[in-house]
């Protein structure tokens, strides 16, 4: 018979909750960029309102972690998982905030005519959200190699950000009337770039949860 079955069930629940929260943040990012593409102000408002659900989820998980620490004296690998959970939910919550930030920019842009078709920004969002989803799997599977690989892919998001920035700069230089609109798109790209950095932080925590070693996977370019 497994001993401490109740405790281990609660530990698994925390990890399941993190998967749910990861998926909430991932969806929020993808939906915010979709709202940008579609100029969907209603959807943008919904994303902003729903950010509170991500924040609530974070506090709910935090509470569960604190309860387990206070009552069950988790040790060794279990302790590391709980400590990592506390860090990871902070990162996921921030990623949710970046999605909210993008939705707010969508509202600012309103019905201004589009500057150009969006290509690299959706690419950044796809790349970043895929990294996020895989980092969640790495956390659950205790997969150090995957975590390191995902973190290294932040370079790809940085490269896309560079590309977006350079392109928009060209627009602004050619026609200063585009400055406001271009700047807003740079803000969007910046939010996505930061969100990907948060994923690399998650990956570092995954590595720690498995190895017990604090390892920086590599500084972001930005």
């Amino acid at each position: 018979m497994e001993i401490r079955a109740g405790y281990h069930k609660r530990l698994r629940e925390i990890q399941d909750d993190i998967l749910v929260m990861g998926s909430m943040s991932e969806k929020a990012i993808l939906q915010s960029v979709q709202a940008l593409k579609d100029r969907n102000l209603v959807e943008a408002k919904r994303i902003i309102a729903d950010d509170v659900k991500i924040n609530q989820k974070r506090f709910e998980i935090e509470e569960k972690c604190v309860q387990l620490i206070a009552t069950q004296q988790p040790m060794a690998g279990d302790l590391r998982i709980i400590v990592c959970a506390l860090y990871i939910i902070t990162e996921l919550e921030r990623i949710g905030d970046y999605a909210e930030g993008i939705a707010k920019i969508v509202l600012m842009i309103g019905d201004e005519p589009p500057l150009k078709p969006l290509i690299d920004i959706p690419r950044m969002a796809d790349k970043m959200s895929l990294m996020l989803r895989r980092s969640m799997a790495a956390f659950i599977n205790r997969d150090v190699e995957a975590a390191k690989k995902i973190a290294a892919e932040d370079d790809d998001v940085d490269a896309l950000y560079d590309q977006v920035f350079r392109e928009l700069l060209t627009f602004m230089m050619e026609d200063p009337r585009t400055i406001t609109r271009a700047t807003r798109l740079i803000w969007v790209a910046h939010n996505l770039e930061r969100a990907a950095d948060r994923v690399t932080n998650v990956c570092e925590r995954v590595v720690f949860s498995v190895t017990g070693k604090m390892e920086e996977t590599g500084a972001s370019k930005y």
Partner: protein
Amino acid sequence: MNSQTFNVDPRQPHLNPPRLRSRQASLFYGKFQALRDISLDIPEKAITAIIGPSGCGKSSYLRLFNRMNDLIPDTRVTGRVELDGNSVYEQDVDVVALRKRVGMVFQRPNPFPMSIFENVAFGPRRHGTKDRKELAAIVERSLRQAALWEEVKDKLHQSGLALSGGQQQRLCIARVLAVGPDVILMDEPCSALDPVATLRIEDLMRVLSAQYTIIIVTHNMQQAARASDLTAFFMMESDRAGVLVESGPTYEIFTNPREKRTEDYVTGRFG
């Protein structure tokens, strides 16, 4: 991308050289092997905790160092057990003198049925101290060291058995200290005490570890985690012989043990 590992382990204890040491030490009770090939260094002036499931030989291992197992008929020790580099199982070792240097505190407080003063004076008297003033000085010093003096100084001639459990255990510690040991072996010293008395003993151990080498056997993992510098994890093998699975700084054993069996034990996956 560069990868960098940070050294974030501020609680790595600074360890003195070993005072006690065992090398391939095995213990047999008749045909039954209770311990197998235990090699472990116990550093001076530190607290080493021995943890492990019931029956894994923790207490038997502790008792190797002051030859308490000799009191059980048909025991046999192989390998080497040392105090300050000298084998304690040589023919010419004076076991009484050894137990004076390697004192022991037991699971249940066991004061003698005599006064508090006499409990502490008992050892020094047996070892030849006769002078009343000198004995009084030893009693006061030992009770102070055991953090009991303030509570009993006005009733030194009352029975030791009238004290609370926690006080009795500190009296027993004072009794050990009175004969001037180098090493204190503690066999589950808090298992009969309430949580507050337990924390007082742990505080006391910490203070005493500045002067004495302490080994504590404990069932209570949290106690080992709180109170010790080093932890050794013992386990029973399939023939029920106790083996040392892993030892290291306490902080590491409880956050990142090397062995899966240690991990499973400290996280409560078996016990």
